[in-house]
């Protein structure tokens, strides 16, 4: 530990440049950046798996890959994207970096636990890499029993270890955020003065903390059952495979909200800033975040409509799933209403955020189709489902992630990025994404099943379109690496608040000092204090 230098206070980056200072840091900002590096690495592993699949699907015949290899690819893609990219994506990076700044704290409540979470994440990632090197796993990311416990000849236990371990990193993060928001707010910053980003992290943390342990224990039982051949999931052993599915989806449906709630927080900040208006219906935005988090816990059975669960359970789960649409649409309406009569400008973060709204709406509305029991019988396990959840998880959540990268880039790095390149990337990403996934809605609706490496020739055109879209999307993902890398070295210096945004994080320098604020901030008003009347001051 170095001693604290006298004024002028160095930024959190300039405190020390050694690798050791990064790997032993307790600074929430540095830990956020450690996460950025890790999840970017895993994002590209999983993206490569997807790219190989899209190449295979260019032709109807299974001519590039064996069926087994294809199974392993979609498993790796799912496992890594879900647990090693999407779940930690916004909370562990921007949540870590921004949450204490936004509430005027020096750090999170438990900085050592925060660092531990990154090491736990890395250990889990190590198991995934071991799984990959050893030859992969072919169960799908859902690890359904009894296939997983009885039949699969791949490295199931190693993969389960990875997922089990990484779960604790999100529990640590969630626990830290809950306590931080409850106990570390600056004087005057009461609950309804919190930025929606903070509310979103809070709601997400509740889900992380209450859902992840269920997955951990369930997967532990699967591993025990596979190793010892005694257990409660395999019917041949007297167990109940539906029990596994209930437990798995009790985590994995709320997990979708772990991915999308933080994205909603990002979008609320960005829209308010670039429309120069306070978020419309702030309290409803808060209640709808919490509503999604709570109701999200009661809809898992919609993944099991055709699994043989009771018809009445299906009806209840269907109804509850429709219910989630209410808070979700409140959010979309309120973002739209925020834009109304605002002085809107279209910087890159805003383009990404608007892209989020469009794609989230598409994903959400098709979700309504899938929540309808009868329609779901037709659409289950088709590409319609694949397209639906990619619109939410890749379309919406990843667009918001990129929106956050661009919006807070000047704060994190102290530098500006080239705006026109960023706008171009945002537009290319939106086009590429729609080209990649919209045809999958049609293919799925026409009956193309998911998880096959070969398919009947009538779906060929749609699949070629989809693969072309994936190529465009790949360009859009690589572009930011290039121009943001350039900005890191050569970008012009950003002031403390290049967007003229409100919020405590913009009141400190860019990049912020180790302890965030030179003087502890005080808050005496609601968030988003933008000029409401066009052109007039408050």
């Amino acid at each position: 530990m170095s001693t604290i230098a006298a004024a002028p206070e160095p930024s959190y980056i300039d405190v020390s440049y050694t690798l050791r200072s990064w790997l032993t840091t307790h600074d929430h900002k540095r830990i956020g950046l450690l996460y950025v590096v890790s999840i970017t690495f895993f994002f590209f592993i999983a993206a490569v798996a997807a790219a190989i699949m899209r190449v295979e699907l260019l032709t109807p015949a299974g001519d590039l890959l064996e069926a087994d290899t294809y199974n392993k690819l979609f498993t790796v893609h799912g496992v890594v994207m879900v647990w090693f990219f999407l779940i930690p994506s916004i909370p562990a990076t921007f949540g870590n970096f921004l949450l204490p700044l936004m509430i005027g704290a020096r750090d999170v409540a438990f900085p050592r636990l925060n660092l531990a979470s990154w090491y736990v994440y890395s250990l889990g990632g190590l198991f995934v890499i071991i799984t990959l090197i050893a030859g992969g796993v072919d169960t799908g990311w859902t690890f359904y029993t009894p296939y997983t416990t009885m039949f699969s000849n791949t490295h199931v236990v190693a993969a389960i270890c990875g997922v089990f371990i990484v779960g604790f990193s999100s529990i640590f993060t969630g626990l830290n955020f809950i306590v931080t928001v409850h106990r570390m707010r600056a004087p005057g910053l009461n609950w309804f003065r919190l930025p929606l980003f903070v509310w979103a992290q809070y709601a997400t943390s509740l889900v992380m903390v209450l859902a992840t342990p269920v997955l951990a224990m369930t997967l532990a039982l699967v591993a025990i059952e596979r190793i010892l051949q005694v257990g409660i999931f395999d019917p041949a052993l007297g167990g109940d495979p539906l029990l596994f599915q209930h437990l798995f989806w009790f985590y994995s449906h709320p997990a979708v909200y772990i991915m999308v709630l933080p994205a909603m927080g990002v979008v609320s900040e960005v829209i308010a800033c670039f429309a120069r208006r306070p978020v419309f219906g702030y309290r409803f935005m808060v209640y709808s975040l919490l509503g999604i988090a709570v109701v999200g816990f009661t809809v898992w059975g919609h993944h099991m409509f055709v699994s043989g669960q009771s018809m009445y359970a299906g009806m209840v789960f269907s109804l509850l799933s429709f219910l989630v649409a209410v808070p979700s649409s409140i959010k979309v309406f309120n973002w739209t209403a925020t834009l109304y009569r605002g002085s809107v400008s279209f910087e890159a973060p805003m383009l990404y955020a608007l892209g989020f709204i469009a794609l989230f709406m598409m994903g959400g509305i098709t979700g309504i189709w899938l929540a309808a029991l009868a329609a779901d019988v037709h659409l289950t396990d088709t590409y319609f489902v694949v397209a639906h959840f990619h619109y939410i998880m890749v379309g919406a959540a990843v667009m918001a992630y990129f929106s956050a990268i661009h919006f807070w880039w000047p704060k994190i790095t102290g530098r500006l990025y080239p705006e026109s390149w960023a706008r171009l990337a945002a537009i290319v990403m939106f086009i590429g994404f729609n080209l990649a996934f919209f045809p999958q809605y049609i293919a799925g609706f026409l009956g193309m099943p998911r998880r096959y490496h070969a398919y009947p020739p009538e779906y060929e055109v749609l699949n070629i379109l989809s693969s072309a879209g994936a190529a465009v999307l790949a360009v859009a993902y690589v572009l930011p690496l290039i121009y943001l890398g350039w900005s890191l070295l050569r970008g012009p210096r950003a002031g403390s608040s290049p967007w003229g945004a409100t919020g405590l994080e913009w009141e400190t320098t860019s990049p912020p000092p180790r302890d965030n604020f030179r003087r502890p901030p005080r808050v005496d008003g609601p968030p988003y204090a933008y000029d409401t009347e066009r052109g007039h001051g408050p």
Partner: protein
Amino acid sequence: MAPDAVVPDAPQFEDGEQRRSAATLGMWVFLATEVLFFGVLFGGYAVIRLLNYDAFVVGSHHTDVVLGTVNTAVLLTSSLTMALAVRGAGLGQRRDTTRWLVLTLLLGLAFLGIKGVEYYQEYQDALVPVLAFRYQGPHAQGVLLFFYLYFVMTGLHALHLIIGVAVVGAMVVRNRRGHFGPEYYIPVELTGLYWHFVDVVWIFLYPLFYLVARV
């Protein structure tokens, strides 16, 4: 009165009160995750018991209800001594605190010892799935699942208790070194919360494995 406590550095907090309330809230959130963690097993138990009720009656009659009951009493008593230890720490009575902590630790070890005796008996009776299971009576598969759940759930509980014993041991050492005083005894308080949680889990395990259809 104890001398000044040795308070570890925590620059993220404004004052001791904020620190204490953050630490206890953190512990409660952690215990909430533990409830969900054990909740999977209790849920699994419920489903398997519904499917195999008769087998669970048989299985429950093969666990040692006398030792199980004694163990329940031992663990409940340890929660009392733990609570007294926390109170002593809050009042700065270092010697009393050490005494209560040591007693808690010994009761925890006693529980684990008795549990070990039970496990050994069950091993000799060939009721341990995978390792030694030769129960041939009616509902053999259901009885196997009963004992599978018995060992997984009481085993996980015992693991938590072993961790608890280790932490209480660390508290004894730190307390004797004078690390705690009325203004700083957060670690003792958190240890207490954890200890009570482990106790509460046992209160649910006891009827589920020892008292099914016993009059």
